[in-house]
């Protein structure tokens, strides 16, 4: 997995609460192999009409959002279905960071497996960032995982701050190293085997 250290990227705001993973990637695309790439399908039905023609006005399609790496969203982003394809779509479209007041738990966990960093900031600060980005299209945010900071928006004189964000130590450690979690866990094989011997003796019916 690609390690995550710092990202200095163009940010784009999405002013919608409860963006579920069906919106991020509709179910009818999920059979496609991972290798085919999901970037072009990101938010597909919000960006296309029933006939498949582009629908104007979606924030990610604004010229200033071209090449954006940071998404600033609303509460409960990524709720709903466990589909990891939602993270694949964001990552394949070039996103490295999603900032929101809260996330769907499974989506939040899936992000870390794919080098995408989900950041929880207070609701008021997220709203402030989205407003600043609306006033300053194409403004950048700098995210430092080791320091656990979001800095910006930079390049504009509007709403600037340095925010610290929380992240669980194990997730931070694996993401900073770009470490494969299965390989990491297999280093604990002896502990797993010992647990299983005890567990099998206690619950032989399983």
């Amino acid at each position: 997995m690609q390690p995550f250290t710092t990202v200095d990227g163009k940010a784009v705001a999405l002013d919608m609460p409860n963006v579920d993973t069906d919106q991020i990637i509709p179910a009818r695309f999920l059979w496609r192999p991972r290798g085919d790439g999901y970037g072009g399908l990101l938010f597909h039905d919000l960006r296309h009409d029933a006939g498949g023609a582009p629908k104007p006005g979606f924030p990610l399609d604004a010229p200033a959002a071209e090449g954006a790496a940071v998404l600033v969203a609303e509460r409960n982003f990524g709720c709903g279905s466990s589909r990891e394809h939602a993270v694949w779509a964001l990552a394949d479209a070039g996103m490295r960071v999603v900032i929101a007041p809260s996330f769907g738990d499974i989506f939040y966990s899936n992000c870390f497996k794919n080098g995408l960093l989900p950041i929880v900031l207070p609701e008021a600060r997220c709203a402030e960032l989205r407003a600043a980005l609306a006033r300053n299209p194409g403004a950048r945010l700098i995210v430092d995982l080791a320091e656990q900071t979001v800095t910006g928006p930079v390049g504009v004189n509007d709403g600037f701050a340095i925010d610290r964000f929380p992240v669980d130590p194990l997730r931070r450690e694996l993401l900073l190293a770009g470490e494969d979690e299965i390989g990491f866990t297999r280093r604990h094989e002896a502990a797993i085997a010992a647990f299983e011997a005890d567990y099998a003796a206690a619950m032989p019916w399983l």
Partner: protein
Amino acid sequence: MTAGRSLFDKIWQRHAILTRPDGAVLLHVGRHLVHDGSRAAFRQLAERGLTLHSPSRTFATADHYVPTAPTAEVAPHRQEMIAALAAHAATHGIACFAPGDPRQGIVHVVGPEQGITLPGLVMVCGDSHTASHGALGALAFGIGASEVAHVLATQTLWQSRRPGSMRITVEGRLGNGVAPKDVVLAIIARIGAAGGTGRVIEYAGSTFRAMSIEGRLTVCNMSIEAGARAGMVAPDDTTFAYLAGRPFAPQGAAWERAVAYWRTLPSDADAAFDADVTLDAAAIVPMATWGTSPESALPVDGRIPDPDREPDADRRQAMRRALDYMDLRPGTPVDAIPIDRVFIGSCTNARIEDIRAAARVVAGRRVRVPAWVVPGSGLVKRQAEAEGLDRVLTAAGLEWRDPGCSMCVGMNGDVVPPGAHCASTSNRNFVGRQGPGARTHLMSPAMAAAAALTGHITDVRTMLAGGA
């Protein structure tokens, strides 16, 4: 003095293989369910050249991509997903319920039905509605494809922190025509679609004690729609009676030993919870959603809210967007919302009690709109047919189909036409969930059946009383 332990605490602590100084826990997974959407995880395993860690703890059934009409022509990409599951199951030596096997069905119907789901277990599945299995006193939650691959390879899962806890207590008797689905919709309306985020919910109180396992499955199933990691109900005699004799449940002397252990699992009287919510069962009435988040559930005698009265700007905008998508106007009575389609099925409401509830409402009457009943498994289908429910339903004009996720998920060919309002017993009313442009109204099987008869959302209590 230490505080008492909750059901969740007991299962969590029992399955912690190791705890890091930073609080991260390596959790053992007792049983793992996979389905025909799990192909990516098996591929990850193959790419790493790894074998399956615990074949006997892994169970497979096809549900997401299967057709639910015997005559349906299955698109090649869907056939490929179904075939891939059978092939991976054969390669790794996993018990697999493929189409044609009477045990095949929706993974969250099959697990309990087969006795794969047991109290005190950690159970996972690459599907967000895995919380369902908490109805039997398991700690069960959904995971993504990478985590599925991790469980396949190691039979463990990292939890970087202990989830928070929430106890939702409902006391009292439910009124006539009020179903477990109404209870969980009322809960979500109360705490919101993110009300349980980061938490495990324990459903407590006399209402759940009196509820059947199937009812508890419906409630726990929708925990995720309140944002919760998991939902669970303490195992009791109802649980043990349900499980006794099921194929993958313990038998004989092992059964006695298992029950003795399961009786130690309920939360201690002095167990602490991070949050407590209480509802009065007598105040819960039949519910339906009007919007595009399950939190938009309203009592059937309510009216669609007015965004102009919503003080929060973002919420106001979200309400307007939902009204626009649903083509509805503020102030409209819920029971005036038109219904063009009805879907009775899904991992939330496709069990025998759900089908009985629908049949009871439509018996001797005639539906006005196209309505499907999709049983949750081959065994549910067989049971319903043995009871003659299929004949009651088809005589009323409903379509009786084959088991699968069907119209809940919009990926198997079963979809609601664009623009149509669908009364659905499923769990999500998200934009496009049941097909592009589909407008979903979540409700109980009895309420969906009532809507099928009238062509609009209808208080099923008027029908049970012998009304129109």
